[in-house]
């Protein structure tokens, strides 16, 4: 059973529908006890890191999540679900995040162009990962974001994207996987990536 965390994110259902479409057995939950019992955890998201952290704290998941991830439970974070893995975020004032990966969530510099980035952009593989198995390198995925994870550990980065600057689009290391794009809205290759992740954790 894969637990999908319901903390009020607007696109929860999109993530649920796409995961179910590729065959996942899901439980949508906001309870730490359900996460303890899950085989894997998905944190979907759209929105701000501060709101997301506040919601996770209110649900008493902000301490449970790092503990479970450090214990080896497979985890997939999507968009803001990736960003909260960082140590801190600059969105609406510097504030701490879950601190699972070293780095800071930063706003795109203004010179990159339109912010937020909205649309399909290419993901270039930069490390071998089963998540991209069968997906042509440079395939486009759907992004909607103004902030990105500026990570201090390049070994975590499995895929990069260029939007005026290069930023991590896909993280994968051990049991932690995360996408800045929305695989649930990225058509064929997005579904393929979700299928790859489910296979790797079940």
């Amino acid at each position, binding site marked *: 059973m894969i637990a999908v965390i319901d903390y009020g994110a*607007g696109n929860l259902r999109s993530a649920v529908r796409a995961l179910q479409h590729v065959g996942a057995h899901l439980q949508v939950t906001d309870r730490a006890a359900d996460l303890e019992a899950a085989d894997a955890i998905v944190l979907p998201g*759209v929105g701000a890191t501060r709101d997301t952290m506040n919601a996770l704290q209110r649900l008493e998941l902000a301490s449970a999540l790092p503990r479970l991830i450090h214990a080896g439970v497979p985890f997939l974070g999507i968009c803001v679900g990736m960003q909260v893995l960082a140590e801190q975020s600059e969105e609406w004032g510097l504030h701490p995040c879950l601190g699972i990966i070293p780095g800071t969530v930063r706003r795109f510099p203004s010179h990159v162009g339109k912010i*937020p980035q909205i649309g399909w*952009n290419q993901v270039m593989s930069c490390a071998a990962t089963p998540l991209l198995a069968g997906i042509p390198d440079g395939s486009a995925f759907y992004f909607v974001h103004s902030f990105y994870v500026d990570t201090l550990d390049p070994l975590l980065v499995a895929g990069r994207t260029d939007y005026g600057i290069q930023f991590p689009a896909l993280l994968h290391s051990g049991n932690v996987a995360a996408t800045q794009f929305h695989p649930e809205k990225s058509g064929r290759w997005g579904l393929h990536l979700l299928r790859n992740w489910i296979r790797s954790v079940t």
Partner: protein
Amino acid sequence: MLTRRIIPCLDVKAGRVVKGVTFADHIDAGDPVALAALYDREGADELVFYDITASSDERAIMVEVVEQTAAQVFIPLTVGGGIRTVADMYRMLRAGADKVSINTAAVLHPLLINEGAQRFGSQCVVVSIDARRVPRSHPTDPLRWTVFTHTGGAGRATELDAVAWAKQAVELGAGELVINSIDADGTRDGYDLPLLQAIASAVGVPVIASGGAGTLDHILAAVTVGQADAALAASIFHFGTYTIAQAKHFLAEHDVPVRLV
């Protein structure tokens, strides 16, 4: 590099696509879910359902159409037409739309943009602007455009300048703008490129060109000369003049970054 988007728009009335065509592959051209799936397979970057129904019964059917589509098609889906309140927005987003598009309601109640953006995020709120050129007394006068509302019916002129309204909509929280030229709509003579340029250079959010596409060159011009981030088109795809894939390959041949599937 961020790609330019091609977005087919389906007019839906009481759960059926109007202005439909006969497609190969035994597609029911009146079935919005089947057409959405077809366009997805062809490489559409997003889909827009425009609800041209008026009654609340038919609006309930639209919710079902959105639910069925979202269960089968995994690209961004925008629903427009008849959305007047935050509750209307919520209903469509909960059904599976990723964005809602508002037009007349935004002109009548600009704070609706702000309320929607606060509640759901700017990325969910698309403001669609119907604009018509103001006749010029001299050819050297600058071009200006007036915003129209109720364009599903007879259409009503407002006092609003289209560029000023576009800026205001973005300040209020619009995440994207659809710029529809009433002059060009249905002509198949091409998008209103000066209108697109004027708005694209005035705002910092994506601009989606609408109205006038008749050839692939028109789409190319919209995303190059017109500086639009995306091109929305209806009839050239529905009537089978071109496929989405043909449009994508045409843009790629002209060095426009596109997503090829």
